[in-house]
């Protein structure tokens, strides 16, 4: 396993897209969080905002870059046919997949931490100007606050789970554009499905089952009772999706012929 890890790390390190995409995770998250923070205001009339969640809203954008990073990690090899070289050099394909997952997780955790810190910082700088002040009873997000720290840490983990899910899906699909379509569908379109269902029971169940809805519940710090499931349980749902995708990918990659 050490050799697979080292090889995959060298690959990730020497692919020029990696640095770009990791920067994109940070920049997109921080920029989107800043944009959200700049456009909300806390007026005397109403200020029913979940402030930490506002500060982390940019992750919705940053997760796209995480997904692309994960998709490229696999489809870049299938698209060029280099996957044959990879599997000839490392015939234990399950280990290759595990090594890829490990490297990707590491990179995502690192970039995700920076992205979350940058987002919170942006929100801290911008929100007070829009009425979110400690004096007004709506302090800007601070990592010294327990629930906010939990939301921030959970968001980093969420990004890692999205990366793992994308990796599994891309390994199963093999084609770059199709994999991105599938992942975008799961991240952005699937969360809409619960809204299309009128029956409250089904609605709740579908909400609980969608990784982006349930996973991002980890950012919630207020109105927890309104959530169909707890923040960390939600992260568990995202983890289940990631595990299922990786398991499927592992089964396929073990038995399937390597075709570019």
């Amino acid at each position, binding site marked *: 396993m050490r050799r697979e890890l080292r090889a995959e790390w*060298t690959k990730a390190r020497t692919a020029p897209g990696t640095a770009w995409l990791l920067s994109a995770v940070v920049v997109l998250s921080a920029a989107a969080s800043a944009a959200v923070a700049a456009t909300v205001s806390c007026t005397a009339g109403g200020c029913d905002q979940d402030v930490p969640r506002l500060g982390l809203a940019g992750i919705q954008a940053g997760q796209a870059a995480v997904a692309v990073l994960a998709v490229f990690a696999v489809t870049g090899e299938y698209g060029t046919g*280099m996957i*044959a070289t990879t599997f000839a050099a490392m015939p234990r394909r399950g280990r290759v997949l595990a090594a890829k997952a490990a490297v990707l997780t590491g990179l995502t955790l690192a970039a995700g931490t920076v992205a979350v810190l940058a987002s919170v910082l942006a929100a801290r700088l911008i929100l007070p100007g829009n009425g979110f002040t400690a004096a007004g009873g709506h302090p800007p997000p601070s990592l010294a606050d327990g629930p906010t720290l939990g939301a921030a840490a959970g968001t980093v983990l969420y990004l890692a789970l999205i990366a793992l899910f994308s990796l599994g899906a891309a390994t199963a699909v093999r084609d770059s554009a199709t994999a991105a379509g599938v992942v975008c569908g799961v991240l952005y379109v699937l969360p809409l499905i619960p809204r299309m269902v009128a029956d409250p029971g089904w609605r709740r169940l579908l909400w609980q089952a969608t990784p982006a809805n349930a996973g991002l519940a980890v950012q919630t710090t207020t109105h927890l009772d309104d959530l169909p499931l707890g923040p960390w349980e939600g992260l568990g749902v995202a983890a289940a999706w990631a595990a299922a995708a990786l398991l499927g990918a592992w089964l396929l990659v073990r038995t399937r*012929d390597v*075709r570019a």
Partner: protein
Amino acid sequence: MRAAIEVIGLRKRYGRTVALDGMSFTVLPGRVTGFVGPNGAGKSTTMRVILGLDAADEGSALIGGRPYRSLRAPLCQVGALLDAAALQPSRTARNHLLWLAHSQGLGARRVDEVIEQVGLGAVARRRAGGFSLGMRQRLGIAAALLGDPPVLLLDEPVNGLDPEGVVWIRGLLRSLAAEGRAVLVSSHLMSEMQDMADHLVVAGRGRVVEDTSVADLIAAASDGRVTLRTTARTEAMEALARAGATVAVQDRDTLTVSGLEAGRIVALLGANDVPFSEVAAHRASLEEAYMELTRDAVEFRATTPRDGTATS
């Protein structure tokens, strides 16, 4: 001598297409084995099965007695070149080899060695995407040599190389074989094998049509006919007929002799004081021999074999 590669009864279908239909052969160390056959004969599929990339429906392929996928550091046992274009264009040549080296527990030093060996030292830190086909081919060969393996597998290595490159690769493969390695080289052009391979495995329609040495194949295709040019036609015919040969007149001073080796003919004519200007064993070209073999395999019909070398 232990076979380096054993291919035993491989069968594989893709849907309704039969790709491999009982492919069996062995590759021995110390020589270059040519793996030839027309496009679609199953060469690449066989090589992919040997490398554990594709799974055969039946049969097995062993490297030094073990399936490829059970090897610990496979590139140190088998070096392979499958598709030279199959690399990520944005990575430099050196970095491409570097991750491969790391996957085998090798260090960067070995990478620099093979880069020099294939003559890519000057461009090692350039993006492989900008490489010509010939440079990519060299990079692929560097990857195959990385683990200093006793077995080499090269799929169409001459493709896209300029004449200088072809000469280089011939020399390289011959020297690798001379070091005692087993070298399997596939090609759909027999002419490429002429001065490269010692042994030939000819494939057609997913199975082996002929498994022979290059010399035997040419001899077989040549039919043992010898062309004799002499001014003393009658004397020559008598002397040779007495020795049991069949002689046919081709034109005024040319005879075609069969049933006797060229050396024996020279001795006979000398003993009988028959003058001659030329004795030439008819050597079919490898290409002719191959066409004859694979025509049957390709067309797969039960016509009489060897009804002539002429094909349209």
